[in-house]
């Protein structure tokens, strides 16, 4: 392997991309558009969910407790702590049954605080073993799981906040409080949004699409235009050709990923907790493996038009089964084993682990190992393919 010859391949390919605006647009615009479109549509988690609140809380009988102040209406406190950005609240003052409103689809949920809410709360603090905790009833339109999850999360959060405030102002320990649900996040947290989850997937997906498609088109043209014949009748070896192109894709992949990440940071303020260099190494492994795949697939197409037909073949499994938009756990269990066959799965998994969890090689070595194996296999197979003569 000679460096000068190998670099001649990389250099020419990079110069070609510079001249070819169409390809250039594909490399940068595609992932940027994806992150902008999906980031804005999916990313800004659900907002303005219409919710009816029926507050029947009668508070405390004056003088009934030494612990809690007389004017305490716990339900009111909880309601006030609900995030008005996420839930668009309508306080139902009618005594009529608000459930009708949910049935009619005018609200996603109805939150009912019973008349004895504060009283029961007091009782359960005093004698926690005998008196059951007070109850908040939520009557839900369960047709949209995302919205249900958002409402439940908001209510839980607000109960927690209320209890925390209460314990602080009354100087009693939170441990004594009933319904104390505590959420401790190992990674991410309340602040992790869809976009944070999505960005590591997008850079993996983009490099996969770009290297596979561009390689197919490059090699279909190498064959059709006859340039490949010239290369094969030169001192350059088949591995120099493959490595030369791989270096060009390495440059493209790094530029692309950095541009996408910078855009995601600027527009969406995503945070990357892990090692960015490790993230780029995973990108390069994805690029090399898919370049090999592209060379192999290029043998199956006679012209660019036929090459385009490979797009759905590559696109759909990656989008549906590799965990780009939704977790692999959410796809039907009989399809889940298929996802192990898709290299992108390991790339996305590794990038998420690095960027969201801050994991290093020690934790993601399986992903990295599989990607290395994929790259070695496809690249050696493509060298053999180029060596083949009729």
């Amino acid at each position, binding site marked *: 392997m000679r460096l000068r010859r190998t670099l001649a391949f990389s250099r020419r390919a990079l110069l*070609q991309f510079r001249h070819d605006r169409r390809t250039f647009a594909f490399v940068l615009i595609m992932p940027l558009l994806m992150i902008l479109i999906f980031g804005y549509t999916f990313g800004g988690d659900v907002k303005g969910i219409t919710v009816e609140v029926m507050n029947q809380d009668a508070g405390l009988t004056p003088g009934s407790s030494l612990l809690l102040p007389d004017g305490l209406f716990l339900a009111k406190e909880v309601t006030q702590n609900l995030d008005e950005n996420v839930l668009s609240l309508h306080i139902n003052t009618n005594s009529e049954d608000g459930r009708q409103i949910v049935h009619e689809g005018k609200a996603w949920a109805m939150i009912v605080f019973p008349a004895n809410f504060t009283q029961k709360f007091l009782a359960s603090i005093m004698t926690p073993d005998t008196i059951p905790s007070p109850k908040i009833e939520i009557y839900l339109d369960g047709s949209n799981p995302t919205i249900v999850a958002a409402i439940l999360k908001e209510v839980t959060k607000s109960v927690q906040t209320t209890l925390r405030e209460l314990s602080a102002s009354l100087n009693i320990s939170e441990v004594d409080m009933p319904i104390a649900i505590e959420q401790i996040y190992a990674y991410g947290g309340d602040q992790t949004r869809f976009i944070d989850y999505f960005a590591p997937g997008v850079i993996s997906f983009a490099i996969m699409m770009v290297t596979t498609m561009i390689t197919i088109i490059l090699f279909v043209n190498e064959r059709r235009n006859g340039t490949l014949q*010239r290369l094969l*009748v030169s*001192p350059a070896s088949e591995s120099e050709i493959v490595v030369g192109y791989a270096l060009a894709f390495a440059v493209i992949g790094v530029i692309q990923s950095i541009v996408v990440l910078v855009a995601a940071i600027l527009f969406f303020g995503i945070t990357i907790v892990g090692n960015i260099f490790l993230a780029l190494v995973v990108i390069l492994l994805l690029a090399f493996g898919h370049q090999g795949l592209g060379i192999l697939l290029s043998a199956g197409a006679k012209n660019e038009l036929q090459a385009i037909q490979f797009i759905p073949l590559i696109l759909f499994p990656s989008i549906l089964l590799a965990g780009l938009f939704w977790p692999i756990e959410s796809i039907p269990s009989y399809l889940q084993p298929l996802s192990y066959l898709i290299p992108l799965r390991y790339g996305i998994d590794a990038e998420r682990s690095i960027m969201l969890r801050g994991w290093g090689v020690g934790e993601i070595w399986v992903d990295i190992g599989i990607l290395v194996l994929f790259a070695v296999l496809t690249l050696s197979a493509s060298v053999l393919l180029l060596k083949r003569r*009729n």
Partner: protein
Amino acid sequence: MKVTCPSCGLVGKVMFDRLFDASAKVVEIHDLTKAFGKFTAVDSLNLTIFKGEIYGLLGPNGSGKTTIIKMLCGLLRPTAGSAKIFGHPIPYKSIMNQIGYMPQDTAIYLDNTVHENLLFFGGIYGMPKNQLEKKEREMLAFVNLKDWRDSLVSTLSGGMKHRLSLACSLIHEPTLVFLDEPTVGVDPELRATFWGYFESLAQKGITVIITTHYMDEADHCTRVGLLRQGHLIADGRPGELKEKTRTRSLEEAFLFLTGRKQS
């Protein structure tokens, strides 16, 4: 020095005043055969080509010219028979830097400039930068593309692409060149320039193997082989072939040899 061609027994006039050993065998072909399925594209070809020759493979479309060149370049595997280039059996890799190959398709990169193509094809032969730059200027002058150096190849005319393709095959100064239909679509004036250049290459001891289906320009070759349906039906100097068939042109000679015309 009097040199007799060992294959045809002739003493060619161009062979007299050369400094190199014109009897050195550059290409030796023995019973070379290529079949695509049941169809035999090249049938038991025997041929020896010597240093400094301009050998013309002549024949109509489909007669097997490209197939022969591709086998000699190692792009196609012979079904039977063998061939040696500079004494190395095909396929070879060690002497590739001595070989220049101009495929029949205009094998250049359309999304690169003329300059980038020349630089690349020189680069994969490992040419050092200053030598490459000098050679590039020479090539641009030869194929008359100086003013298009920085143009994208996709914007050039068909003839210009063809000229660039030729330049890309010669930039690394090969000692054996295979040119598959180098004059197709080239205007008559430039065609004359091309043949002049090929002759000057031959003078320097470079062996040039050219295919063409234009019989009229084959008179420039030192020796021609007439091909028909994969068979070599005649091999010799153009003058000799015309003499033997008592015809005035190679075209008539070809028709005579294929039995389609009486002399």
